[in-house]
């Protein structure tokens, strides 16, 4: 068996090294629990991922709205009163911001998986993204027209 000793430095050997030739000692870094705060792009990623919570929140609000609507005018008036309180307005504004972030980042990711080539030539990313943004804009206009009572 080969014994490993430190390189000669002109000093007396005081202790045996704590490693063998085949198991060198190395520093194994551990990621901080707050790694996403280290760089802006990691924070942006964490925000994108956590936007899913707000998507779920809006789904629950919509279901609650439908339930209140089907339960009659009194329940719906309660629901409206709840939505008009300042805390809910702040929460909904925050949720809207995160949902916009969710939608935009999702549409920008579409070219990563779809439509890489057209007629044998690579297509620019915008070719895959733009139709999604246009469809989103069109749906928003239709909903807005309903809310404004045009239809």
């Amino acid at each position: 068996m080969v014994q490993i000793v430190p390189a000669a430095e002109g000093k007396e050997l005081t202790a045996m090294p704590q490693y063998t030739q085949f198991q060198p000692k190395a520093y194994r870094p551990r990621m901080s629990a707050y790694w996403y705060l280290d760089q802006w792009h990691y924070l942006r990623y964490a925000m994108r991922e956590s936007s899913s919570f707000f998507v779920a929140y809006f789904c629950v609000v919509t279901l609650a709205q439908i339930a209140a609507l089907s339960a009659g005018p009194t329940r719906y008036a309660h629901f409206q009163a709840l939505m008009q309180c300042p805390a809910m307005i702040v929460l909904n504004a925050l949720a809207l911001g995160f949902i916009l972030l969710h939608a935009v980042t999702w549409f920008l990711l579409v070219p990563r998986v779809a439509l890489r080539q057209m007629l044998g030539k690579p297509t620019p990313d915008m070719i895959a993204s733009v139709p999604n943004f246009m469809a989103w804009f069109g749906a928003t206009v239709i909903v807005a027209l309903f809310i404004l009572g045009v239809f």
Partner: protein
Amino acid sequence: MSDTIILEVERFHPERDTEPSYQSFEVPLREDWMVLDALNHIKDQLDGSLAFRWSCRMGICGSCGMTVNGVPKLTCETLLINYAPGPVRVGPLDHFPVVKDLVVELDDFLAKLQKVRPWVVRKDDKKPEREFIQTPAQLEAFHQFSLCINCTLCYAACPVYGLDPNFIGPAAIALAHRYNLDSRDQGIEDRLDIVSQHEGIWDCTVVGECTTVCPKHVDPSLAIQQYKLTATKEWFKSFLLPRGKN
């Protein structure tokens, strides 16, 4: 502007230290110097015990990957003057065990790379009688992914790899994808068995930083997302035509 800049270099001596610390060095700030030149200046003039890897000095060998101010970079193509007035923090690549100072152990990456079989796999054992012909379009299909130099900057930028060391990782998957797209290759099913596991493509949550830091514009994130599509199509095929392979 000052004609010197401070480099804060991460130091770790495996026989003396339990964790790394930073040591500051004042080096000349020259317009044409890369961060690697500054490190070589330290090694040659200030402290010969500093350990780091480098070889080609022209962004081809992939040896000199380190973090510069927390961002994974090839130090041979990272201009020092861009960080003026400093200080500049130079550390080893994140998520890898540190052997000494700026030198990391890449055994895990190399094992994963071999696992995905990054070479042309042929099902017939016969030696080809002549070379395989490829059209420019067939070459174009995988060319981008063949530019990977195994510098592992993408691993250092990937928080998924940092949190789950079992993740096969961006470069290995990109290279697997490169051979899947190669018209000469017949190993797509073998690779899919390895890469389509949870620790493979499905562990990726599209952080996208692997693509941002890649010095060769390989776009590993794109390779992983395309691989997901391939894996899904293959799954549907095997579900709808369970005996199709026989």
